[in-house]
């Protein structure tokens, strides 16, 4: 992959982050038919994972929290649920960053899969505790997100460093 070595300015990166989240949120709420709605990947969380891994200077716990809150509002889940899960996931990325020094495509994908698993598990546990419900469809959505994550990587590869 021939990615240029030029570093992006702060403004450009922040703009890219904001725009990518706006696009991801619109993909997240786009009405789908009843059959395909369960296959919908968690686009916002996928994009969040990308930025957490590749731009830790600009995104961190607070970004995860805010994006989680926005996702809560858009998806009509209880306020704070996805925010909690997203912060837990951000912590996993931070811990991983201590041990991993160099990241290849496959490694990033693997880390993203772990993140998605953590996110969905935390969400499941929170829903069990606070609402006493279990939504198995979340698993399908998680697997779809895992499968589609390289697409996010491909779309945003300019900002990998």
């Amino acid at each position, binding site marked *: 992959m021939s990615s240029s070595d030029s570093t992006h300015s702060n403004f450009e990166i922040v703009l890219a982050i904001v725009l990518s989240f706006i696009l991801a949120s619109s993909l997240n709420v786009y009405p789908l038919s009843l059959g395909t709605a*369960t296959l919908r990947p968690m686009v916002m969380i996928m994009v969040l994972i990308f930025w957490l891994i590749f731009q830790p200077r600009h995104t961190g716990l607070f970004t995860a929290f805010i994006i989680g809150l926005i996702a809560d509002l858009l998806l009509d889940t209880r306020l704070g649920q996805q925010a909690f899960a997203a912060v837990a996931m951000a912590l996993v990325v*931070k811990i991983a960053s201590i041990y991993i020094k160099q990241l290849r495509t496959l490694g*990033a994908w693997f880390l993203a899969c772990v993140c998605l698993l953590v996110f969905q598990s935390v969400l499941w546990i929170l829903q069990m505790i606070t609402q006493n419900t279990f939504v198995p469809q979340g698993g399908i959505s998680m697997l779809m997100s895992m499968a589609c994550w390289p697409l996010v990587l491909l779309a945003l590869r300019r900002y990998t460093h």
Partner: protein
Amino acid sequence: MIPSIFARQPLSIRKTAAVLIVAMILMWFDSKNPEWFNPIRSTSHAAMQPIYELSLLPSYAAHWSSGRMESKESLRRENVQLKSELIHARAKLQQQDYILAQNARLQGILSTTRPEQYDLTLAQVIGTDTNPLKQIVVLNKGVQDGVKVGQTVIDEKGILGQVINVYPNTSRLLLITDELQSVAVTVKRTGQRAIITGEGTPADLRLNYVFKTSDVRVGDELVSSGLGGRIPAGYAVGRIRYVDPDQGDNFMHIEVTPAANFNDNSYVLILQDKTSKNAQRQAMLEATEAAALDELPVVGALQPVDSLDNPALANATGADPATLPSTQDASAQSSR
């Protein structure tokens, strides 16, 4: 390969714990006082409106292309079929006219109130809501077609639900299969009253508050009784699938199959009060005139127009469906 090196950032456990606690406090507040967050939720739904608007395009395109691609032969065949269906429907209507006239006479004798008259607006389901826990779909008709919060939506077989949010060209429909929805029904065979509640899945309903001693059988049809004041009387709701008398409770455990098709309905009908529709049109005309005069900013058009309705209804069926439990549901809660 991506030549990326993690930038070392300090692992701030304290900050993480603080943020997690804030999230937990928010969750707690939302579970105790969900109405506090209604303004934010309605704003976020209004922000989603342009995306819904955008999602109308594929259905227009599909409609256009199907109009172009279909062969003459298949259209002719469909036409013949539809004509025969129309003749059958008209034949049935003849009898219904007679029954309606008789009904009106009898009601005149009993001096009861006249049943309400409704206009039917055809709408298309353009998608589901994003939350799998909620039974909400998006329709392609909005304020500009006279849709209002609280209007009942049916398909050709039975009741689907009621409208909870309206936007200029789209609206959101909460199905009766949602856990927060209840419909007052009567058993068609015996006239017994009961309340149907959603289970959160598209193919299940539950019939509540039927005593063990009452006469209820598998296969009994249930029609809306109109007692809640929201959903008009006389529309099919479901059919009893299973009755379990062996429960330690006073009431029977009854499962119901909904009459309407919740899985793959693409066209639905919105019941609109004849008088209110005209009033709504008038209000819309005035609003557009005012907008033309004042040159209102575009943002104003994105706001949900709940306030156009009578305020009591708007309060009860605000943006958040969590606050929607109808009057029957409230009474159900208290008697539990």
